[in-house]
């Protein structure tokens, strides 16, 4: 009996070994959790999806601009890879007489090539963070005047023109040294919102299903594409894409809705009513935010966001000027000397400067990217990341 007790005692693990085993158990548990949470793709339930808007019969049609100087310039450069230089007011500058402008143009070509290479080869699987846990953060009122007073050097990068749409992509650089900000503006005219589309990675609605922006753009024959709201990063939040409702739950982030009549509105979580926007013909709805402008082109006084998102970051934003006229902006960041990124207040000021009435911040950081005809226009931070959806234009 005594011997049995002694054997039992000797079989007991020492306390440090038990602690070590428990720690290993915790590590294993965390690893399994993270694997399911971030890595293993899960298809969301699509049984409840509902087609609520079909633009073919009901959508409004809009006229493309015909007689502006800018448009004439666009048409002449459409479908070419040549670059011209323009000043901030979009007037054409002869590059042979403007040394600064021609230098910038050369630099732009180089950076565009580099970003295209980096973008397609060095995609990383960095973790994204959504706009949740929001509070009302006061806008930096000086940001607007700073942006307006900055000398912005604008370079026309690309353009596209057809019977259905006109796209102009400009590269804008403001500030100097470590304060330099580089952003890309796609000015878009479409004859119908039929051409302003969104797509899921691998054409599948689900969590952890991701692809590169250029990959999704190629899959969908996109002329121009930017990242969307990374809906797959969250299990909640309104998702309406190309007239199909996937989910309509409201979180604490603002919601942006593009309607079939070409108008775009932003809603605070309190004001958003899914049934109402669906009845009004919701074509796309994104959940990220915050909303940047008040619907009349004025920068909001407070933003429904978090301190983290409010800081200087790479950005993607969609803006509404008038029915059929939209602006997509991608701001590069986290690259001192090239572009520091911008705060939400600065982004709002940029969107207001671009003439937008309504504007909405989409997913940013490493997600921010703009792809034109399969090539990256910008230089995504740290090589960018795979995302779950894009906003794109296609014929």
């Amino acid at each position, binding site marked *: 009996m005594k011997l049995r007790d002694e054997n039992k005692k000797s079989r007991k693990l020492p306390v440090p070994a038990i602690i070590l085993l*428990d720690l290993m158990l*915790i590590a294993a548990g*965390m690893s399994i*959790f993270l694997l399911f949470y971030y890595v293993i793709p899960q298809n969301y339930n699509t049984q409840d999806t509902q087609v609520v808007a079909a633009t073919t019969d009901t959508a409004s049609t809009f006229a493309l601009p015909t007689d502006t100087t800018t448009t004439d310039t666009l048409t002449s450069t459409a479908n070419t890879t040549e670059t011209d230089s323009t000043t901030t007011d979009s007037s054409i500058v002869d590059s042979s007489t403007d040394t600064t402008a021609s230098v910038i143009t050369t630099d732009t070509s180089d950076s565009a090539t580099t970003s295209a290479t980096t973008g397609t080869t060095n995609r990383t699987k960095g973790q994204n963070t959504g706009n949740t846990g929001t509070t009302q953060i006061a806008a930096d009122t000086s940001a607007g005047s700073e942006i307006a007073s900055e000398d912005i050097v604008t370079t026309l990068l690309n353009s596209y023109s057809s019977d259905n749409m006109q796209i102009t992509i400009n590269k804008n650089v403001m500030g100097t040294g470590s304060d330099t900000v580089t952003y890309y503006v796609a000015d878009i005219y479409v004859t119908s919102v039929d051409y302003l589309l969104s797509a899921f990675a691998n054409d599948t609605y689900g969590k952890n299903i991701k692809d590169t922006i250029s990959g999704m753009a190629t899959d969908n024959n996109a002329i121009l594409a930017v990242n969307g709201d990374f809906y797959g990063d969250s299990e909640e939040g309104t998702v309406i894409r190309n007239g199909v409702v996937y989910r309509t739950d409201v979180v604490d982030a603002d919601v942006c809705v593009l309607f079939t009549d070409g108008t775009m509105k932003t809603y605070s979580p309190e004001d958003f009513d899914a049934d109402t926007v669906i009845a009004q013909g919701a074509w796309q709805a994104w959940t990220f935010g915050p909303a940047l402008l008040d619907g009349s082109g004025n920068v909001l006084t407070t933003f429904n966001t978090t301190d983290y998102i409010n800081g200087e970051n790479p950005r993607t934003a969609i803006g509404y000027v008038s029915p059929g006229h939209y602006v997509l902006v991608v701001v590069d960041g986290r690259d001192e000397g090239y572009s520091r990124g911008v705060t939400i207040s600065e982004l709002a000021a940029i969107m207001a400067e671009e003439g937008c009435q309504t504007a909405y911040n989409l997913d940013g950081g490493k997600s921010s990217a703009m792809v034109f005809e399969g090539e990256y226009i910008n230089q995504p931070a740290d090589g960018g990341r795979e995302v779950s959806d894009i906003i794109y234009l296609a014929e």
Partner: protein
Amino acid sequence: MNKIKQILPHFTIALSLMFVIFFILDKINPMMNFTDNSISNILLVVLCLLSTATSVIAIVLDRKNR
């Protein structure tokens, strides 16, 4: 049964400390959303069941020893 009695408290400790880590990470960065997602909700139910089982076993053993 003895094996289960021995292992259960360790799983309870591991799961409890995992939730402590989730709460700390969520405090630091709420956008990671570690505590309010479908997986952590399932884990929370498992933790409740484990805690109940561990507590019941502890009470039964205590009564036996008296």
